[in-house]
């Protein structure tokens, strides 16, 4: 018959055995010593390696959007940069910049956060307003001269004394649809209203993470100029109408791609580059920008407290035409480099939202002057509408 023995009993028994001399004390301490030496040796090696690593270069912490975007940056920008300089880029994925801001506020420091793949001019303004910005020495970033003036100007208007970020890419949030279930004709005919098509109930998705995105489409669907919304109730009524048809609000680019690829949803607003990545994988997904569709630009934002010289070196490396084009092809978003100054390969020219003029006049961006004042109230409103309120 086996007897149940708990840990306490086992310990008591062992102690008794040691006391009785049944367990060789030398063996016992020998084993204990071996364990200690193993831990000590490995600890020592790790310490030596850490010292070596610190001596080898500076660590830069980068946070971005994950998925194909992170893969492209790692492969075409960070790995070559590390090989060329000996510095190290530690990249991580965030769910959105509000997550980072929450962390920084909670920690009371920017330690462990250096460069963000920041979304839009609105967030640039928020980082500046919260005093998390730096003044970059543009002389250390000579490749900045190749960036489109149309992309630099909005940032410089906020910080005329010097940029805290370099514009890096741009894209649109249009509508993706599965061509096996939705015809091109129907998509073109309905435009933004395709997201409100009752025949597609339970097969429609939406981005849940950004109130302004939902409001932009609500404005289009209620016949308003998104940069001059007068009737917010009408906007949220359209969002409620959309909600009744939605299977799932997605929260990240990876989730968006998964839902579309697995045909859980057939129609959703979507980020142009992510759809291009799905198309490249052979999925039957088409993409359209409805009239007045939402365009956005992203920057590489350097946070206060970062090692500036190394950060500037990395930004310059990332803006090098060879690197920037390789990243653009990888992440499927056009580069911020001016195509009238830097020749773009066909692969980049064929990307959604690509503007060959370098002036971006055909794209409609969110105006921070008209959007930011509404963010506190309408952002909270969207969270309620999303949950049935």
């Amino acid at each position, binding site marked *: 018959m086996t007897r149940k023995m708990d840990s306490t009993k086992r310990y008591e028994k062992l102690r008794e055995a040691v006391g009785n001399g049944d367990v060789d004390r030398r063996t016992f301490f020998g084993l204990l010593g071996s364990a200690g030496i193993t831990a000590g040796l490995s600890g020592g090696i790790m310490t030596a390696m850490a010292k070596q690593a610190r001596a080898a270069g500076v660590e830069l912490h980068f946070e971005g959007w994950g998925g194909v975007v992170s893969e492209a940056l790692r492969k075409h920008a960070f790995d070559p940069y590390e090989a060329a300089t000996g510095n190290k880029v530690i990249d991580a994925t965030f769910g959105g910049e*509000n997550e980072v*801001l929450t962390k920084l506020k909670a920690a009371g420091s920017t330690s462990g956060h250096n460069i963000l793949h920041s979304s839009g001019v609105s967030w640039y303004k928020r980082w500046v307003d919260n005093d998390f910005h730096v003044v970059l020495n543009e002389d250390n970033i000579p490749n900045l001269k190749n960036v489109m003036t149309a992309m630099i100007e909005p940032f410089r208007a906020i910080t005329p004394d010097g940029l805290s970020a370099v514009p890096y890419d741009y894209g649109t949030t249009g509508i993706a649809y599965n061509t096996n279930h939705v015809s091109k004709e129907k998509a073109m005919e309905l435009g933004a209203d395709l997201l409100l098509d009752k025949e597609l109930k339970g097969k429609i998705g939406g981005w849940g993470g950004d109130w302004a995105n939902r409001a932009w489409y609500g404005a289009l669907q209620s016949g308003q100029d998104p940069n001059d919304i007068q009737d917010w109730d009408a906007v949220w009524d359209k969002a409620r109408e959309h909600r009744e048809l939605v299977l799932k609000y997605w929260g990240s680019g990876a989730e968006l791609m998964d839902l579309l690829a697995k045909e*859980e949803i057939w129609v959703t607003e979507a980020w142009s580059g992510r759809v291009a990545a799905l198309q490249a994988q052979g999925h039957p997904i088409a993409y359209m920008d409805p009239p007045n569709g939402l365009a956005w630009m992203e920057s590489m934002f350097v946070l206060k407290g970062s090692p500036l010289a190394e950060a500037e070196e990395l930004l310059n490396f990332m803006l090098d035409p060879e690197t920037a084009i390789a990243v653009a092809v990888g992440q499927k978003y056009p580069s911020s480099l001016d195509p009238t100054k830097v020749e773009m390969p066909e692969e980049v020219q064929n990307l959604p939202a690509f503007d060959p003029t370098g002036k971006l006049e055909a794209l409609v961006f969110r105006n921070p002057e008209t959007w930011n004042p509404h963010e506190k109230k309408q952002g909270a409103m969207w969270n309620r509408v999303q949950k*049935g309120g």
Partner: protein
Amino acid sequence: MAETATPIDKRPLVLLTPAFIAITALVVIPMSFILVYSFYENIDLAVDRVAFQFGNWEMLLSDNYYHSAIWKTLRISVVVTVLAAVLGYLPAYFIAMTTFRHKWLLLLLLILPFWVSFIIRTLSWIHILGNQGALNGLFQWLGLSDEPLRMMFNEFSVMVGLIHVFLPYMILNIYVSLEGIDRNLEPAARTLGATPWQAFREVTLPLSLPGLAAGSLLVFVLTGGSYVTPLILGGPSDFLFGNLIYDAVVTELNWPMGATLSFTLLVLLGSVVILYSRFMGLNQLSKAFG
């Protein structure tokens, strides 16, 4: 008659001091900060003003949005707890009563899922219940349905995900309680004329109640505080109170409101623990843990 002074035994005090310090530093003080923060005023996104005002608490008490979220959270927590108890008792009973020599292997299998990330375990349900998931593939292969059945992104999938994650806590608690029962009691009941079912119902089940109750308390509290599972597996209507806290703190950058909601959740779940203590006694927890 001369009174003899009883020497005070200081050992409990000495032994409890580290735990007391840890709980004060890691729970009481942070929660006090959260309570204080709930009286601050959020002026703009991520901008708060130090104040002593009740605006956040007024909103919480007067707004039906929060009340419905509390109700939904309690409802889902109760359903998940009951289902976990029913589903967990059987494997716990089997592990406790089996004469299999390597019982440790069964316990190891039980805790094996903990070695896989909670997020990965939750995401795995998309590949089981999704339109192109294993179950729909099986149903269509068997000819039971032509179109994929909608099993994902609803309350059902959220509950499945929550039960999946928390079931081991229930099983382990019940198992420990069952292990402590004298094996002779059931045969004794049988010799007195009880049927196997009666012997289980009258002897084993009541004696295992401390473990069942401890497991239920854990599952209820853990479910009540969840927010990731509804985010991943739920549809637009499937959210818990924790999701409102996430919204307030992370997306609205309104920490005072987030603090108010967090403290409310603490009070609600704390009340459940107090009720448990009132009716079951917290000492039952220690019995359940052996």
